[in-house]
């Protein structure tokens, strides 16, 4: 046993926002007072029963929770091993897990009296969720999205605009998620007085990684209860894809102190780990970016490298700091899936279960062909189906059509 292991994996972060050496508050002074205000406002909201009650009301009637835990019978039979359950986050309003977090943050923003909401988005799922809740609560919404992602995720761009949000295509850097986050931070530092930055994943300066995790933990908490009802016990393993890592953290966190539960995160290996990819834990090392210390893809001089993934939502050279800590402590095992594996899984789930997954979630599905067959038939495996694939249909259709020619 590692003598440095904590008594609990669920007690982080410390009061300065650290998970081990990871996390922290690496932001410009202009933002620091606001980040301290946010920390206070969130702590007050968390302790206020009326906040939780109001949120639960919206989660039930607006988002449509609880999301089902569904036994994937044909996928299980096809892989011939563990009994596979899908946590159906793709059935949420707006089509992914992102809405769980956005609802919470918008409610905090309202408590703080902020009228203008900004967000960054990769695949557009977080942007759509933010635009949706801004429409619902009558707030101004500006979404930063890399120009490359605007191209490959057109359906979501149209949805955001239809919901009344302004989508700003970001032209700097690689014009993907990292650059969208840079420009969102630049907007925030400029409009700090009236603007709330709704971060889409478990990253950024403290308290964001903790706050987003708390709002997403509804996924794991429901899973715990639903598995109890379905099978009378805890699951044996959990699998989720990871870009920044919010859907994974939401599923994993409630189970971190249950040692019988094996936990697997799946990073995006792009063209392969020796080529262009987005697997920060497998191919990166600790550094500081976007307000936190975490694993990052970078060169020998500390310059951030461009990530690559077929999935816009995983195309980010970093990962949430709590994942970096869970990786180093060994509690969670992090694997990776290539573009090709994700594409195959996308088609497999569509054909076997009649569910078109988001390309992001397809990375988690892809690893089942390694994880499930090695395990006995009474092994209960839960996969987070974090988003639906409608937004990816044009892109995947083009790729497959190109191959037939």
């Amino acid at each position, binding site marked *: 046993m590692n003598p440095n292991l904590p008594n609990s994996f669920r007690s982080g972060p410390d009061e*300065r926002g650290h998970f081990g050496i990871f996390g*922290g*508050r*690496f*932001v*410009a*002074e*202009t*933002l*620091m*007072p*606001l980040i301290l205000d946010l920390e206070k406002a969130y702590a007050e909201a968390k302790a206020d029963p009326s906040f939780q009650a109001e949120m639960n009301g919206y989660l039930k009637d607006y988002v449509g929770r609880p999301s089902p835990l569904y036994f994937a019978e044909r996928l299980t039979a096809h892989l011939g091993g563990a009994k596979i359950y899908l946590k159906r986050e793709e059935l949420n309003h707006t089509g992914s897990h992102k809405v769980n977090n956005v609802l919470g943050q918008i409610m905090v923003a309202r408590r703080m009296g902020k009228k203008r909401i900004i967000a960054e988005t990769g695949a557009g799922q977080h942007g759509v969720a933010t635009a949706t809740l801004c429409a619902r609560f009558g707030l101004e919404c500006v979404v930063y999205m890399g120009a490359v992602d605007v191209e490959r995720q057109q359906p979501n761009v149209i949805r955001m605009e239809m919901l009344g949000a302004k989508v700003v295509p970001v032209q*700097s*850097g690689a014009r993907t998620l*990292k650059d969208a986050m*840079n420009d969102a*931070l*630049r907007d925030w*530092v*400029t*409009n*700090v*007085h009236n603007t709330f930055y709704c971060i889409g994943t478990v990253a950024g300066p403290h308290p964001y990684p903790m706050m987003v995790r708390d709002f997403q933990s509804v996924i794991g908490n429901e899973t715990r209860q639903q598995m109890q009802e379905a099978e009378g016990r805890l699951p044996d393993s959990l699998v989720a894809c990871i870009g920044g890592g919010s859907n994974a953290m939401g599923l994993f966190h409630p189970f971190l102190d249950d040692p019988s539960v094996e936990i697997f995160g799946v990073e995006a290996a792009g063209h392969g780990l020796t080529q262009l990819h987005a697997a920060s834990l497998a191919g990166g090392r600790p*550094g*500081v*970016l*976007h*307000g936190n210390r975490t694993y*990052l893809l*970078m060169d*020998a*001089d*500390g*310059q*951030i490298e461009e990530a690559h993934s077929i999935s816009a939502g995983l195309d980010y050279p970093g990962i949430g700091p709590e994942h970096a800590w869970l990786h180093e402590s060994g509690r969670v095992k992090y694997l990776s899936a290539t573009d090709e594996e994700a594409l195959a899984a996308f088609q497999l789930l569509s054909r076997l279960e009649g569910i078109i997954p988001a390309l992001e979630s397809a990375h988690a599905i892809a690893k089942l062909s390694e994880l499930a067959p090695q395990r006995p038939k009474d092994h209960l495996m839960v996969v987070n189906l974090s988003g639906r694939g409608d937004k990816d249909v044009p892109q995947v259709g083009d790729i497959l059509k190109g191959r037939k020619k």
Partner: protein
Amino acid sequence: MTTRIDARFAELKRQGRSAFVTFVMAGDPDAKTALEVIKALPKAGADIIELGMPFTDPMADGPSIQAAGLRALKGGMTLKKTLELVRDFRKDDDSTPIVLMGYYNPIYIYGVDAFLADAKAAGVDGLIIVDLPPEEDTELCIPAMKAGLNFIRLATPTTDDKRLPAVLANTSGFVYYVAVTGITGAAAADSKVVGAAVGRIKQHTKLPVCVGFGIRTPEAARAIAENADGSVVGTALVDALKGSLDAEGRATARTVTAVADLASALAQGVRGAKQAAE
């Protein structure tokens, strides 16, 4: 400990004038040209040189300085080469203070202790690290002080009286007041509002207060100089440099003079200011 920065402000106080602080990006567009540019700045009237350390993701910088950093990186600039640039500059100039300005990650990857030793040996006097607020002082600020380098903190319009003492606690050399909430190169600062803010900061510290962000012209520099111990100009100089490059972004025969001429005009603006009231 008296650094070149302390000595320079003491000298300016004797002369009864405000400091002209220039910012350029190390290695923009190449290391050789950047050395010629920073050598020309003191001759043009710069009292202190801020040298940008290029970074891929400068989250507090506007388009001009973002592009300058990317030009430098494309030209092969690294943190090691930035320190070499300072070392070369020091061969001919042992008095003009050099402050490195940038983001933490390249320093963290270089290794904090090695960086501080190498920076001190190269002739660096101070550091401004945008993404290290007082809450993260143990990372670099405290070690830098121990290594004999000034750690210059940014104070902003959002830094209220309650927070100022924490921001000033481990600051040395001077205080850099960011005149606007925003990124570099953004809106111009109103000199009256800035004057009041500088007065507020001076109630909490004896350190000189320099003002930056939004100063582009000799007139604006003069107005700020009347209300502060120094004015920082960055984006305007970086834009002048960019305007002198050829279509491929390479330096031309005009590059050094383009920056020096603007610096000279700005310096005259600063020198034309009435001495700020103590």
